[in-house]
């Protein structure tokens, strides 16, 4: 046997990511709409959070309803460290990520003794506490009024100010996040994580230190969320606590589940779905009912969400992959490809 046979288990080809990014980075050739780039940038922020969250929720099977806290810690660290203390944004991003990592570790140790609904509530509570602290420590964070004047980020003298430049920046982060997490998933560590979802008791019995793994992946996902939050802060230059409410955490999880938990592509599809749907609903639904104030269009979002989860509990990407593999089974192919597909397809939702 040679190293090629690993491919029978894990499809580690970087072709997929490269094609995605080739396509994305071609968009500027055909369009220069700032609106389009701002949307793609938003998708990038969310995707970065979701890639981390999916390793936690999808692969290790641990729910978090508190990831907006890390998103917020990143954003506020960047804001405060650059504006108030004049640090370089890159250093602020790193410090923010370290703070998030430490918080995740401290909170994670007691939290991951819990399971299921208890874990959900504990992480939700954590998120609400952090949100309230952002609001109440107004001397540092600006409180409910928000934090203004966060400087843009720059690299070798180039300032990322336009939507287009930021679009490149965030997606480069997403690209490396995909490679990094996929490498983790396709390794001893990934198996350790998935074994937790497969059977905690058997994982324990083969020597997987469950707590250690849950913590490591919680910290990693916190770092991703934190970096995303930092980048967001430098992009929008103004943040307020309401960006990091419990609902934000909930929507992160919705993106992960809708796209297909336990699937890195799923988190990108989920983030894109969410942002696009949100935009479409915001623009078109009020045209139908012009007299209603408030964001009632979320009704439609809610309905779509519930229907998706009821009829495709695995999420969009695994469902798509299953369809593909059914289609492929009709034509004779080599078994290798098939099993790669089914690994991805079923890696997801088995409880």
């Amino acid at each position, binding site marked *: 046997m040679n190293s090629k046979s690993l491919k029978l288990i894990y499809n580690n080809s970087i072709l997929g990511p490269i094609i995605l990014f080739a396509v994305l980075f071609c968009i500027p050739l055909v369009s220069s709409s700032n609106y389009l780039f701002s949307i793609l940038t938003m998708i990038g922020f969310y995707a970065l959070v979701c890639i981390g969250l999916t390793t936690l*929720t999808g692969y290790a*099977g641990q*729910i978090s*309803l508190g990831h907006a806290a890390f998103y917020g810690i990143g954003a506020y660290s960047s804001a405060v460290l650059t504006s108030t203390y004049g640090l370089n944004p890159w250093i602020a991003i790193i410090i923010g990520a370290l703070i998030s990592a430490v918080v995740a570790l401290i909170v994670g140790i*007691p*939290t991951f*003794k*819990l399971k*299921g*609904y*208890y874990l*959900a*509530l*504990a992480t*939700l*509570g*954590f998120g*609400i*506490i952090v949100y*309230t*602290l952002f*609001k*109440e420590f107004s001397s540092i964070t600006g409180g409910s009024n928000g934090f203004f004047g966060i400087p843009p980020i720059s690299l070798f003298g180039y300032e990322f100010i336009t939507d287009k430049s930021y679009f490149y920046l965030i997606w480069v982060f997403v690209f490396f996040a995909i490679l990094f997490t996929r490498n983790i998933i396709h390794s001893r560590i990934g198996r350790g994580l998935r074994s937790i979802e497969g059977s905690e*008791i058997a994982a324990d019995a083969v020597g997987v230190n469950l707590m250690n793994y849950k913590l490591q992946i919680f910290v990693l996902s916190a770092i991703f969320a934190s970096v995303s939050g930092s980048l967001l802060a430098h992009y929008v230059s103004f943040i307020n606590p309401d960006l990091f409410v*419990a609902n934000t955490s*909930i929507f992160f*999880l*919705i993106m992960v*589940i809708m796209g297909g*938990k336990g699937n890195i592509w799923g988190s990108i599809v989920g983030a894109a779905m969410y942002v696009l749907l949100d935009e479409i609903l915001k623009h078109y639904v009020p045209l139908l*009912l012009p007299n*209603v*104030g*408030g*964001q*009632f*269009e*979320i*009704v*439609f*979002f*809610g*309905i779509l*969400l*519930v229907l998706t*989860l*009821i009829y495709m*509990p695995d999420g969009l990407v695994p469902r798509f992959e299953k369809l593909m593999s059914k289609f492929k089974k009709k034509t004779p192919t080599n078994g290798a490809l098939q099993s790669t597909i089914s690994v991805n397809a079923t890696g997801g*939702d088995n*409880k």
Partner: protein
Amino acid sequence: MELLSQMMQLLFSGLTLGAIYALIAVGFVVIYNVTGILNFAQGEFAMLGALTCISLVNNNVPLWLAIILSIVIVAAIGGIFERTALHTARKSSVTTLIIITIGVSIVLRGAAILIWGTQVQTLPPFTDNTPITILDAVLLPQNIWAVGISIVILILMMYFFNYTFVGKSLTACVVNPFAARLMGINPEKMSLFAVIVSAGVGALAGTVIAPISGATYDMGMMLGIKAFVAAVIGGLTNAPAAIAGAFLIGILEAFTEGLWSSGLKDVVTFTFLLLILFVKPEGLFAKASGKRV
């Protein structure tokens, strides 16, 4: 004396809050016990109950009738919710179920904006609201209504679950669904029934609190989460413990708000929750049980 009256004052508002949380928390427990699902949309029943009742009153329906009608309407909505969402998805993973019930709460909230807008609406108090003074503390009759109604309902529910056939059947489904089926009890019907009851009780909670703190489309979320906290503190499967948890949370909140800071109220509540989860995850009043291998 002044301190005492302040304490009394805070205690009254704590009990009022606790009474509301208790009604919603019991709903959580009933649904969880029968279906194994924690319904994150529970707080929305209170919101729907409050706003429906207000609309009815604004259309000259007498208050008592409006309350009954809104309970019936919301219970029916609960039934539809059970059939369309919970029942179809009951085999999904915990995470998926959480998101589905959150999805339903999003739908209900959006629908509420559509129907009632985003303005705060008010309901007149159930009876003349001239304050009563007890030990220098001012007590509004509506608060007495809140606590009184919730105590009566909770007692009725206890009676129902422990002494009536349907109630005992519900409990049987929890203890052993298979045996329950053998005895001719249909767990599916019980699940529908449980959701209808919890929705109705939730709606009542909404109508009771509406005269005190008003009603908006988004009031359900925090009410739901707090009641959820109460239920978990009580151990999630035990209704009396959830009620105790609810009063504990209500009083804790009232005192934090009164003595320290209303902004940090949630920090205190959730820190308390986390402490309990970390130290005694099976709830303040429960015994542990283990999984067999």
